[in-house]
């Protein structure tokens, strides 16, 4: 009865999809060979450059800083969002106090805060971490809040009836029941954090993947620019797969129950 969910992309045996992908790559190769355009280097060239560029020096100069910023910003958002969201879901009054502020802040496009962050926190890591955390905070916060609020009353009543105290109800019923929605927020934020990371590094930075891509473009090092873009795509994919692994483990019961009850 448990249906294993396929991971997206590489792992699924979707040969039609792969045919389209190979067609795209093949067409790129042929067209770029024919035109000889500077802006569209051949796939072969991009792959060669990719292998040459992403060696240890560049990995430690650009990839590591990017991942550290992303990890710090996202981690900060996950922590704050979960705690504050649960608190807001539990205490209606707190929610009413904070709701207008939250609605205003989350409607602000995060890149608009980059100048502010650079001004107040300087060009170092702090400003990027702040913008990444700011952008990824809201989906986590709001999903945690709604998750707590939407826990089925019947489950809470059942637990109370069996003599569980408020604390035990919170830990053993509300917490697990909130998990699916909390994870939905965490997943949305992961993509948001990734995007914000690149933007923040393009605007005011001296290293990182966003900086690397923009710099390559400015120097007309076009194959390097593509190597950077391709690495970002790859990292995005891997981060997503890792997240799904964790989610699958924590929410194995949920996936099953959803598969059975439409």
């Amino acid at each position, binding site marked *: 009865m448990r249906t294993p969910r396929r991971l997206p992309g590489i792992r699924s045996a979707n040969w039609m999809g792969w045919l389209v992908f190979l067609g795209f790559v093949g067409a790129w190769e042929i067209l770029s060979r024919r035109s000889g355009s500077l802006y569209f280097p051949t796939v072969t060239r991009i792959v060669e450059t990719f292998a040459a560029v992403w060696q240890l020096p560049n990995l430690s100069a650009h990839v590591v800083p990017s991942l550290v910023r992303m990890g710090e910003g996202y981690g900060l958002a996950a922590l704050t969002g979960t705690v504050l969201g649960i608190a807001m879901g539990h205490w209606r009054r707190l929610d009413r106090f904070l709701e207008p502020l939250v609605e205003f802040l989350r409607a602000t496009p995060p890149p608009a805060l980059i100048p502010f962050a650079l001004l107040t926190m300087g060009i170092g890591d702090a400003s990027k971490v702040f913008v990444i955390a700011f952008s990824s905070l809201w989906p986590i916060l709001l999903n945690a809040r709604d998750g707590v609020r939407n826990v089925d009353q019947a489950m809470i009543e059942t637990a109370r009836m069996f003599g569980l105290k408020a604390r035990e109800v919170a830990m053993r019923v509300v917490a697990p*029941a909130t998990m699916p929605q909390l994870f939905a927020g965490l997943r949305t934020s992961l993509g948001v954090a990734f995007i914000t990371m690149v933007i923040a590094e393009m605007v005011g930075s001296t290293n990182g993947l966003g900086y690397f891509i923009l710099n390559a473009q400015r120097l007309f090092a076009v194959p390097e620019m593509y190597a950077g873009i391709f690495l970002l795509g790859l990292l995005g994919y891997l981060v997503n797969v890792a997240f799904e692994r964790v989610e699958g483990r924590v929410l194995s019961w949920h996936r099953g129950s959803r598969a059975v009850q439409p």
Partner: protein
Amino acid sequence: MNRVVLEVVDVSKRFSERQRAALEEVSFSVREGEFVTIVGPSGCGKSTLLKCVCGLLAISSGEIRVEGRRVTGPPPGVVLVFQEYNRSLFPWLTVMQNVMLPLQKRKGLTPLDREGLALRMLAAVGLDGFGNHYPWELSGGMQQRVAIARALAFQPRILLMDEPFGSVDALTRMELEDLLLNLWTQFRFTTLLVTHDVDEAIYLADRVLVFSGSPGRVVDDVPVHLPRPRDQIGTRSAAEFASLRSRIFRQIGSGRVNWATAPHGEGGER
């Protein structure tokens, strides 16, 4: 006669000032080991009453006493089984873990005792071997059995059931009715069961309390002297069953349910 374990005295419940009362001056009592059913049209406050008895809802006036003690919060030894098993079983716990959950609050039991008790109750409802399944892997009827096993593992003095068989198909329903009677004979817990199915109410009960709706009131208290053990075919075709049925239908309001009394030649009047 057995002693009274549950007393409901002049209980009224109003959800807000402007609304009509959900319950108005409801009084009745239940004796130890008795099987009492409450039957009435939907919206007559039956479910509200059960929630008040198990302390999940506060009453507006009157008094509810369980074993002489006034109910202010969930009283120990009283368990409610909901109609929606899928809303009261915890989907992140296995069947066994669900049944064990209320036992963790019970003092004087070793972990081995708890496990043994849970296994015994699962066996009693015919679910041995299903302990490691998740509730959502089971059919609706089986899930409600898990909920019943969990309630019984708690070893309640009073078992409250709110339309427990309302969400399963007709055949499963009969099966679960007989299972419940069987368990009741075995363990002799006091039972108060709410249903809107008049036949079910008679089939199960020692006594049927007839409710009328809006505001909910007790309009009749009908003793059932049908012999036990009951039998889905024999009991339901007994002459007494038919006459109880007519009496209760008339109390609920013959005008609204004339289809039900019609086969006995007593319906149709408005």
